[in-house]
């Protein structure tokens, strides 16, 4: 039944990450950590998967000698997320008029 849903987005943490990135121009690793309420290791792992699929951009830099990771949504990721949401709507029999 759920075969058409993007398996990469069909996981709680990855879906949460993509949802956050849709509302911000860019997010920092620590903010994502706070919002997703997951562990540092798991977040890194999920970010790596999304990055490998080219759904997100990851920029690693330094601020006051501390490492800073900035994450943003790619165009491919945005399209994938929109497609995912459209598919969910179809499963739930939602349309523009009753959402």
């Amino acid at each position, binding site marked *: 039944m*759920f075969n058409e*849903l993007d*398996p990469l987005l*069909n*996981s*709680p943490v990855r*879906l*949460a990450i993509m*949802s*956050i990135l*849709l*509302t*911000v*121009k*860019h*997010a*920092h690793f620590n*903010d994502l950590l706070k*919002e997703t309420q997951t562990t540092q290791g798991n977040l890194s792992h999920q970010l790596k998967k999304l990055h490998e699929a080219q759904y997100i951009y990851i920029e690693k830099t330094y*601020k*006051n000698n501390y490492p*800073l990771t900035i994450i943003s949504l790619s165009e491919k990721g945005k399209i994938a997320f929109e497609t*995912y*949401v459209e*598919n*969910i709507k179809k*499963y*739930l029999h939602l349309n523009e008029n009753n959402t």
Partner: protein
Amino acid sequence: MPKTLLNPNESLAIIQKVVLSTRQDYHIKRKFYILWGLLIAIASFSQYAIQLNLIPLPWYSPWIFFPGIGFILSIIWGLSSKKSSLSYYNHFVLTMWFTLYIAMGLSLFVALFNEISPFPYLLICVGTGTNISGFLMKNRIFIISGIMLGLGAIYCLFIPFHQQLLLNGTCMIVGNVLPNLITHHV
């Protein structure tokens, strides 16, 4: 189904929860607006005092000294602040105010070049920014403040220059500094 996979209802619930909580969590750093509002107000009051010969300084000195402090503090704060994620809303508001500050600087230059009062133009710029921010935030205090700054700009046209200085300073405190002080959340 493994626990790591979601059904459509769970997916929708996660998206809704995350989007709502993210929107609530990202705030604009108001200290920059409070700083500039205060500095422009103090510069206006200082020039008023200079015009009354209460302070023996050239008339333009407050407009070099106080904006100078503003630039230095803004740069220091900007460099030392803990950077956080940037929402599209905050990105828009910051870009708008950056553009308006340039417009204010140009208005000041044009007004001084033509030897006319810059305050109506400054108040229009600040009023426009405050009003747009208010409508975006759905915050009545900012909407009313923006309108008040616009009315102040019009009133400036009917009063002498030295009174415009007082009016400009008062408008900046009442219409810019106070709303930013009493409003905590976007």
